[in-house]
């Protein structure tokens, strides 16, 4: 009679995964981060923007879903601060303001963290603008009509950066770190010709990848935490992306082992059924 492998209870699998995560956190391994062309293209494009260019960062979705994009965004903010670019954050969903603040704080680019950026001169956080597509179009058409103050309630005319931003014509690049990227492609890139970068969540990448083929040289994307780790490598830091890929390296081994184990279990039971 063939050896019969018992079915593993889900709780055992969860316990093993928890142990793997714990090991990855306590004892991270040095992993190589190979570079992808997609990430390198984004990096080079931002590197080639003239000093003082205005970059808009914005979009709409939920913080927890967008967190994956923050790995790339944080590294990108460091790059933009180093290259003396200017950034306006445009939140089109309720939690986007918190997401943008999280990225700014984690990137440590503000002068209160010893960074080179000064609020109002180098970056500005706008308040949440309800209306999704309508808000985006209104913002692109006439910034000062669409929104009167920044997130602190300061009139936009009192902020040096906002005095240089009147409409989409003043924006050199749009970076999206939110799931609602089609909205950005539609109104920002397709209708107004502004290049856009999407630090895509891994699950969203496949859905939105055709935009890169539709608008070559205009739409750029990176892939999830892997893209984040690659971007961090280009900027010369180790952050959330590297940590996530570290844990992933451990986890993928467990994933493969469990799938193989599942198939072996099935094979032993098939033999039993035949008997």
């Amino acid at each position: 009679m063939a050896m019969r492998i018992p079915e593993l209870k889900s709780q055992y699998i969860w316990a093993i995964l928890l142990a793997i995560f714990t090991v990855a956190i306590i004892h991270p391994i040095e992993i190589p981060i190979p570079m992808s062309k997609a990430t390198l293209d984004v990096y080079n494009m931002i590197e080639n923007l003239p000093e003082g260019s205005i970059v808009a960062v914005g979009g709409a979705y939920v913080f927890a879903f967008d967190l994956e994009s923050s790995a790339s965004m944080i590294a990108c903010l460091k790059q933009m601060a180093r290259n003396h670019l200017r950034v306006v954050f445009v939140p089109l969903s309720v939690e986007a303001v918190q997401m943008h603040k999280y990225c700014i704080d984690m990137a440590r680019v503000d002068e209160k963290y010893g960074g080179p950026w000064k609020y109002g001169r180098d970056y500005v956080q706008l308040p949440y603008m309800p209306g999704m597509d309508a808000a985006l179009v209104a913002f692109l058409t006439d910034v000062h009509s669409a929104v009167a103050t920044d997130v602190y309630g300061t009139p936009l005319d009192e902020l040096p950066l906002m005095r240089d931003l009147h409409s989409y014509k003043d924006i050199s690049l749009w970076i999206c770190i939110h799931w609602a990227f089609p909205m950005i492609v539609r109104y920002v890139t397709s209708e107004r010709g502004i290049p856009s970068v999407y630090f895509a969540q891994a699950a969203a990448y496949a859905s939105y990848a055709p935009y890169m083929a539709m608008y070559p040289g205009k739409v750029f994307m990176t892939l999830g935490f892997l893209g984040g780790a690659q971007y961090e490598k280009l900027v010369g830091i180790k952050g959330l992306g590297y940590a996530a890929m570290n844990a992933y390296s451990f986890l993928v081994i467990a994933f493969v082992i469990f799938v193989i184990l599942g198939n072996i279990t099935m094979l032993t039971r098939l033999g039993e059924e035949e008997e």
Partner: protein
Amino acid sequence: MSAVVYIRLYLTRILILIGMLSVLISWYFVSPEADVIANELQIWNMNIATFTLFVGLLSVYSRYIRSIMNREKYWQYHLYAAILIVVWIIFGLKVGLYSDIYQKAYLCTKITLHIAILGQLVFFMISACYRLFRMRTLRTAIFACCTLLIAICNAPIVSATFPAADKIVFWFLNYPASAGSRALLITGGVGGVVLGIRILLGLEKGALRATEV
């Protein structure tokens, strides 16, 4: 025709048409006047969206207060939510949405919990894969092999050792996975257009309550 019927049948549809035109007008009509009208309508749209936040708040409270008064199922959660909403509103107005303390409180509560919920999916996903990726048929074999291939090739250790792994991942994502996703989106888009037309023509039962009058 009574006022209620008039509002339900026509006014809502007219308002929807005006809203749709606000998006299309400046795209199809190249004139400064059209741009001014379109921009004005976009700002109206934003203002209405802002107002709907207050409407949402009132709706939630009317529902929750009724539930609490009548001790309906889950009334405790409604009470908890009703208190929490007020606390967060006062907190936000007092310290500001962009303050460090608000950010800290938000990250330590809502965001951490939400991320934890999403993080749990990894546990469920792998235990599900253990049971589902059993290659009994050709279909499950293809499905399991593709998933395994992407998962393995995506690991930095693998793609650093075998540079072709990176190309394999992006080929899978850019072509087969993308095609499937786009097919779903296009189907949804066509369905959305058809649904929109049906709603405007009053054919969709219950939509805008037009057929209920």
